[in-house]
């Protein structure tokens, strides 16, 4: 028996030492986790990483280790990393993935309040302090916001050819679209001319409708509790259950009508929308140059993007594009310097996003700032370029207008701020109610958005609201109102 215990201990200790890494790194290496949209890590990642590191060592005496993770598994992976307190330096975080606020309450992120201005001056000053307020909790800041298009504008993407034909026939035009209902004429036109089309309108997008109706969510778009962006603080702002408002009720009713008329695919519940066949869809982030992205998404068809809501800096969305540093990071200052470098150094930014000139892309001889990707290259993080401090550094590709970044900057400068910009909600008292409301939202939202309830709409809609009441929506609204009033009073 004793012999075996000894053997057991020896075996275990072998395993224990297997995990030890004894190499000493002379240069600090930043472990950087971010999202990529593909499935497989680009084969040349190591090569590009080496080039980047050459610049990095020279400029800030550090190296970076890139960890791109598929968007679909990012949440899962980061969840484990953070909950198991695994080592990382920088990770992408936001409200819709790897939730920033949750992780702050888990004490997973480093408090950069006192060091951000010194070590990431350019990056930090690029964003209005009011926006930074929206991610500042108890006066402490835990992440840096990336620069890209900042306001949110709801819009529609429509297939250009049929839209032009429609406008020609009816005299309609894009600037006449002021509201989400204004494309009904176009939808009818498409149905008339192409009766077999089964995906004329991809069903309403939950983010799109929130922005389209002008509600700024206090906790998140899946939860009741928002204010209208047209509210004026001097009149006092009321927190409402947006799902119970007439705006939402009318929208859901419209969805039912449009479903009955056949604009929405009958099998919408089971069949995911096929963007390569659909004629139109709502978008929640209209921006200059959106056509280029939609071109790709639509299966290489020419599309037109029509905004219909005002461009507003939403408290819920604007600040929600963050790079955060881990509490366990061995050198947070260097991490900030790295992020700042991505902001200022155009060459390094584009190296990260597009790879190496010659290997992965070629510069356009005639137009400045334009590039063409090398055929069959698998290196490109272009469609997630908004993660890397400053999207305005980016080279332009084929379908982007040469002024796209200028136009975006203009929008950034001219957009209105939501009246509650900077307000952070402390959800700790109503966590259970929020979880229950989320359950209810999840159960009803798709049916409501797709308009499949038909004649049973009124009953189901009322059931939805009733269930929210049972889940505790009123306590949530009350808590939100109290906190909001206190915050407004303190300004």
């Amino acid at each position: 028996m004793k012999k075996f215990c000894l053997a057991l201990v020896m075996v275990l200790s072998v395993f224990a030492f297997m995990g030890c890494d004894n190499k000493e790194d002379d240069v600090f290496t930043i472990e950087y986790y971010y999202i990529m949209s593909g499935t497989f890590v680009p084969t040349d990642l190591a090569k590009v990483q080496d080039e980047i590191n050459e610049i990095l060592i020279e400029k800030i005496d550090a190296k970076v280790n890139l960890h791109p993770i598929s968007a679909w598994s990012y949440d899962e992976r980061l969840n484990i990393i953070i909950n198991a307190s695994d080592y990382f330096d920088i990770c992408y975080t936001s409200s819709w993935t790897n939730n920033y606020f949750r992780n702050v309450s888990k004490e997973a992120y480093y408090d950069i309040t006192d060091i951000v201005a010194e070590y990431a001056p350019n990056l930090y000053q690029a964003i209005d302090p009011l926006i930074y307020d929206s991610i500042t909790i108890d006066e402490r800041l835990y992440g840096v916001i990336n620069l890209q298009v900042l306001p949110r504008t709801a819009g529609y993407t429509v297939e250009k050819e049929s839209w032009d034909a429609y406008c020609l026939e009816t005299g309609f035009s894009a600037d006449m679209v002021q509201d989400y209902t204004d494309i009904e004429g176009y939808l009818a036109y498409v149905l008339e001319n192409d009766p077999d089309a089964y995906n004329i309108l991809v069903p309403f997008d939950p983010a799109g409708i929130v922005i389209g109706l002008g509600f700024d969510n206090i906790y998140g778009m899946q939860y009741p509790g928002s204010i209208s962006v047209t509210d004026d603080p001097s009149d006092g702002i009321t927190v409402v259950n947006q799902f119970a408002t007439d705006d939402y009720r009318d929208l859901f009713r419209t969805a039912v009508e449009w479903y009955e008329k056949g604009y929405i695919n009958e099998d919408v519940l089971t069949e995911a929308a096929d963007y390569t066949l659909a004629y139109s869809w709502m978008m929640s982030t209209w921006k200059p140059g959106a056509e280029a992205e939609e071109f790709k998404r639509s299966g290489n068809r020419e599309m037109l993007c029509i905004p219909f809501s005002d461009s507003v800096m939403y408290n819920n969305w604007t600040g929600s594009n963050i790079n955060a540093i881990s509490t366990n990071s061995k050198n947070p200052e260097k991490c900030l310097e790295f992020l700042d470098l991505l902001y200022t150094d155009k060459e390094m930014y584009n190296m990260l996003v597009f790879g190496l000139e010659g290997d992965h892309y070629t510069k356009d001889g005639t137009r400045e700032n334009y590039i063409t990707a090398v055929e069959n290259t698998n290196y490109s993080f272009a469609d997630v370029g908004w993660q890397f401090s400053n999207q305005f550094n980016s080279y332009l590709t084929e379908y982007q207008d040469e002024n796209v970044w200028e136009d975006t900057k203009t929008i950034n400068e001219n957009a209105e701020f939501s009246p509650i910009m900077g307000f952070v909600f402390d959800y700790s008292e109503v966590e259970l109610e929020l979880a229950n409301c989320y359950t209810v939202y999840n159960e009803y939202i798709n049916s409501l958005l797709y308009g499949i309830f038909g004649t049973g709409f009124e009953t189901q809609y009322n059931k939805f609201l009733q269930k929210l009441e049972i889940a505790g929506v009123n306590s949530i609204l009350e808590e939100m109102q109290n906190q909001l009033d206190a915050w407004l009073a303190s300004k």
Partner: protein
Amino acid sequence: MKKRTKHQRKQDRELFLLCLPTTIKTLIFAYIPMVGIYMAFVDYKPSRGVFGSEFVGLDNFRYLFQSIDAQRIFSNTIFYNVLFIILGTIVSVTLALLLFEINNKVALKVVQTSFFLPYFISWILVSVILQSLLDSTGLLTNFIYSITGTKISFYTTPGYWRLIIVLVYLWKSAGVSAIIFYATLISCDKSIYEAAEIDGASRWQKMLYISIPYLKRMIIITGIMSGSNILRSDLGLFFYPTQDIANLYPTTDVIDTYIWRILRKSGEFKVGTAVGLVQGVVGLGLTLLANKIIKKVEPSAALF
């Protein structure tokens, strides 16, 4: 412990050695992490670790018990599990008995292989196939329409799904379970069957009085093992065929799918751990109870 003879001690030692690798593996991989169950009682903050986080008593259990859907998920979970145990056993045993009657080697191979085929079809594929049957252009939907003139919308009517889930469950696992019972049958002593044959027993009599009693132990054991997981469910079974369509939740939402959704949104492992603990405690209670009863009735079939 009762006094052991020298011979007994020798035998015990030898047998224990045979048990050693498994025991070590279990101690390392299962028991060491088990201390983490304590996470169910704390407000877990990773940087403080499980034992450094603040104790919150039964707070984390609220998400399960005070959930707005608590009653539904509990009743669905138990309903399906009880039904699966009873129906599953009946179907699998029947299939095994039928298989046992086949002597033709080719037929045997074909049937056995077919029993396993559903196991290879991943749940995602199952959902696609089901969709081909049940959505608005589906084969079954069209068939029913052509006969009765009504167009059923399967994916928005929870009522049909109890039956659908049970059928899908049986399709996927009855064959595989049957193989276990079949393996039990063929490892028995054939001479009893031969003696019965000589005594003029019919096929059905042999089945009833020889085969089924022979399977008793296996049936009881598999029954108890299913009982240990009375509050657990196969996520794949409940999540994919229904495609997580909320309209079907009333009849298909179980504890595990509910918690999975919560976890996916909030990433709060403390809630998952709390629920796992509840499932374990109930499972343990049921197992011990069943074990006690079986010990009195059929001691060799008891688990421990």
